[in-house]
């Protein structure tokens, strides 16, 4: 086993230097030719990483494993949950390493913040559309370092100048002598080469992979059932578990009669937890049947009276009387003109990834082994250590492909529950949540109550702009160290505090709101911008209407100092034939935004029936996400992100009555289906700007475009989501 020594300083120190968690902060990454100083790349020098890396001949850094024979193994710092990041990150490394994608295999990273933290998040986590932004340069450097060492090894072996060598498909060639050697043959010698402190990255004109439509590396196994997700893992001696959780968050088991459950064939054990009761069985059906047969008396706990009606009345009161924290204030708000104002309200939302939450856990006296698909491997390791009392290095986490994440798998609650069950028995347990449990025990997107106002001049253009967001902070629980010193949570106003328009006099502020204890709220695809863009872009539409102007014309006037976004607006207006005549009951809505380091504009055309059913007819999107790593994925993420956002906007609200969620499953928590989906044209603007995020942009821009289309079709302004409920009430 040969391994490079770990160069100092450690990457942890570098991460601290970035300021940790910073949603929306864009890593300075240039597309153009660059001689890049190499970030310190730690080699895998601790026990967990060594166990995972398979002892390669050459491991120049945490991401690349080159064995004597076989494909090059790439360790993925982020997790694959549908967004295509495994293909993009593999391409970033392979590009600089002069490999093709059919020459690599991919491995899930073990939990290790030092090696695999996402710099923009300050920890090993996948979310906030940060992966490509954070790793775009880092992974290219990692590939370039490995290439330099492999080429250096060949040069030394053949006693020639490294500059005279070329590489094609992982084979180093010396043209003058006709000699060549594959990476595998050079691996052992490469490990003895000095690690370069500077490498030259390729010029974009020389890219063979980046910017081309790449086929995803995970697709073949996902069309024949071969790809294992977390829920598919089977280990010897394993039992399946189902948990009946207290319907009210914070409630407790008062008593349980498990006689009927134990009598069911295949049921193995009944395990009483604090806040629920678990049944294990030979298969899911036995465990589920056992769980259904439990007779549990609950102590419903402190949230037994919580309801959505109470929540919104408290939000409304907090908005009026609470103490705001200013996010951003520019110019002078004291301007002459007419005030236009509106209240926008957004509901709590469930994530509902298609793969129900699950984890396979084996607690042994000396170790805990976990198989799970998670966005936060280190948090999973930590919760298991906490529950079992084992040191973290005795918790082995095997991450898996995720059947959707959307923020739900940024939480480790279900894994902690699985460890509590597994700790009570001497066999491995696979805990599977039912869909009902998933909906009712989500860590939901919080509700918001926003008061937005503008002073408009005689032309109807805004001369002052105020936006007061009221809602609970996810960040204060999830990453309290990232909250500003004055308590401000930047996520609450992201997408609201710097609209792309010319608004020289602006104040955006947040009034903190506390959810009842025991009712945690969480990240939902699109995070702050998904809530804020709905309000900002709906309100801009309101102002356009009040001014008697076309929504595109009105926006165009406000974008004269922002050519990058103006170009998108013009492109969408053109490609969507915005000005063409509309049949009756047909409406068109447009919305735009600059979020996650990207810029987007979307038009959607709808028809609203006399019964107020909303039918989406067609959509046209334009995206400028800087340099495009894989256009195939950009198109897919915009289409899918829009559908995710429209689903939420049209149908979704998680409501509580007497402390319990009222929705159960896809029958009453509705999802958009293929027959409801319009054709979606995606125009990707060529750009050499910094790489932007793409996984959440479509979701964030979906609701305002649709709300504006509803207004265009019906004259009804939706200020409270979801749209179907609003239309019913109107």
């Amino acid at each position, binding site marked *: 086993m040969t391994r490079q020594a770990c160069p100092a300083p450690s990457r942890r120190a570098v991460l601290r230097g970035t300021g940790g968690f910073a949603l929306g902060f864009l890593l300075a990454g240039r597309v153009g030719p660059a001689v890049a100083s190499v970030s310190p790349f730690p080699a895998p020098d601790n026990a967990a990483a060594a166990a995972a890396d398979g002892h390669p001949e050459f491991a120049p850094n945490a991401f690349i494993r080159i064995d004597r024979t076989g494909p090059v193994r790439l360790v993925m710092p982020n997790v694959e949950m549908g967004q295509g990041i495994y293909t993009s990150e593999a391409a970033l490394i392979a590009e600089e390493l002069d490999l093709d994608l059919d020459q690599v295999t991919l491995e899930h990273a073990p939990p290790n913040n030092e090696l695999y933290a996402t710099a923009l998040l300050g920890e090993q986590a996948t979310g906030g559309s940060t992966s490509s932004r954070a790793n775009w340069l880092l992974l290219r450097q990692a590939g370039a370092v490995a290439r330099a060492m492999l080429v250096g090894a060949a040069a030394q072996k053949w006693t020639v100048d490294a500059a005279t060598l070329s590489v094609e498909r992982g084979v180093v060639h010396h043209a003058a002598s006709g000699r060549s050697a594959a990476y595998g043959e050079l691996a052992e010698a490469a490990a003895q080469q000095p690690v370069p402190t500077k490498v030259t990255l390729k010029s974009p004109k020389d890219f063979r992979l980046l910017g081309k439509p790449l086929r995803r590396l995970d697709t073949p196994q996902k069309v024949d059932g071969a790809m294992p997700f977390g829920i598919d893992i089977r280990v010897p001696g394993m039992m399946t578990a189902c948990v009946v959780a207290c319907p009210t968050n914070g409630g407790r088991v008062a008593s349980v009669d498990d006689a009927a459950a134990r009598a069911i064939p295949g049921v193995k054990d009944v395990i009483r937890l604090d806040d629920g009761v678990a049944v294990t069985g030979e298969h899911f059906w036995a465990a589920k049947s056992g769980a259904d047969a439990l007779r549990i008396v609950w102590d419903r706990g402190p949230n037994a009276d919580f309801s959505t009606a109470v929540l919104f009345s408290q939000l409304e009161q907090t908005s009026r009387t609470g103490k705001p924290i200013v996010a951003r204030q520019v110019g002078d708000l004291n301007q002459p003109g007419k005030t236009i104002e509106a209240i926008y309200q957004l509901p709590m939302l469930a994530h509902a990834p298609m793969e129900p939450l699950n984890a396979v856990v084996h607690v042994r006296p000396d170790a805990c082994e976990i198989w799970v698909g998670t966005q936060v491997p280190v948090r999973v390791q930590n919760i298991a250590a906490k529950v079992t009392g084992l040191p973290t290095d005795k918790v082995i986490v095997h991450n898996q492909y995720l059947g959707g994440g959307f923020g739900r798998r940024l939480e480790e609650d279900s894994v902690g529950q699985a460890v509590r069950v597994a700790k009570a028995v001497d066999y491995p347990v696979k805990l599977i949540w039912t869909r009902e449990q998933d909906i009712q025990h989500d860590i939901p997107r919080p509700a918001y109550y926003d008061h937005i106002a503008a002073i408009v001049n005689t032309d109807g253009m805004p001369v002052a702009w105020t936006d007061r967001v009221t809602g609970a902070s996810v960040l204060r629980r999830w990453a309290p160290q990232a909250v500003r010193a004055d308590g401000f949570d930047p996520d609450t106003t992201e997408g609201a505090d710097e609209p792309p328009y010319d608004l020289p006099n602006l104040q955006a502020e947040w009034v903190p709101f506390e959810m009842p204890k025991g009712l945690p709220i969480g990240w939902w695809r699109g995070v702050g911008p998904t809530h804020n863009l709905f309000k900002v872009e709906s309100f801009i539409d309101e102002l356009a209407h009040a001014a008697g102007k076309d929504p595109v014309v009105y926006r165009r006037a406000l974008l004269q100092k922002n050519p990058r976004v103006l170009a998108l607006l013009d492109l969408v207006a053109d490609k969507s034939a915005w000005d063409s005549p509309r049949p009756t009951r047909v409406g068109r809505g447009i919305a735009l935004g600059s979020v996650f380091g990207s810029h987007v504009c979307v038009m959607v055309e709808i028809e609203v029936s006399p019964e107020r059913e909303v039918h989406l007819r067609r959509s046209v999107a334009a995206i400028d996400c800087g340099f495009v790593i894989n256009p195939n994925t950009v198109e897919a993420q915009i289409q899918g992100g829009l559908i*995710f956002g429209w689903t939420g906007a049209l149908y979704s609200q998680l409501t509580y009555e007497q402390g319990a969620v009222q929705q159960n*499953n896809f029958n009453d928590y509705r999802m*958009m289906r293929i027959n409801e989906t319009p054709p979606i044209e995606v125009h990707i603007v060529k750009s050499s700007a910094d790489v932007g995020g793409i996984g959440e942009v479509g979701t964030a821009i979906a609701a305002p475009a649709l709300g504006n289309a509803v207004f265009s079709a019906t004259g009804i302004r939706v200020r409270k989501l979801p749209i179907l409920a609003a239309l019913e009430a109107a």
Partner: protein
Amino acid sequence: MITVTVNSRDHVVDVPEDMPLLWVLRDVIGLTGTKFGCGIAQCGACTVHVDGQAVRSCVLPVGSLSGHRITTVEAVGETAAGKRIQDAWLDIEVVQCGYCQSGQIMSASALLAHVPDPSDADIDAAMAGNICRCGTYVRIRQAIKQAATGQTVAMQTIANTAPPMAAGASKSTQ
């Protein structure tokens, strides 16, 4: 003891008659390509073929299946329609997270076997029972059309002249 015929093989299973086929496939026979999504036939992730018809295995009691032929996603590629659908799925890059795609492919294969050249309305009717949370519907529609007509659908980002990657060309490890 119940005998079920899955992918042309007989399996004798010792399970209750009311146990849904889904859990027999996944937890007893060990075919995990068929997925659990809702348990109430609302999402289609568990779709399999029984005698060539697409059905939701999460609500189908295994006791009712003696003498019937069950096909799962692991073997649907052995049928002409299933192979065409899988090839089109690869060519058009339908998949995102992939969890629902077993069910999508089973529904689409059954559609194509019964309606060789489906209209948009046929696609809506056959596929509306399959939820995709990633929102791959636009490409699903394109892939079904390509599988039906054999004509490559003009994609904006993928050069359709490029051959699809062979299955298994790049495997990810556990």
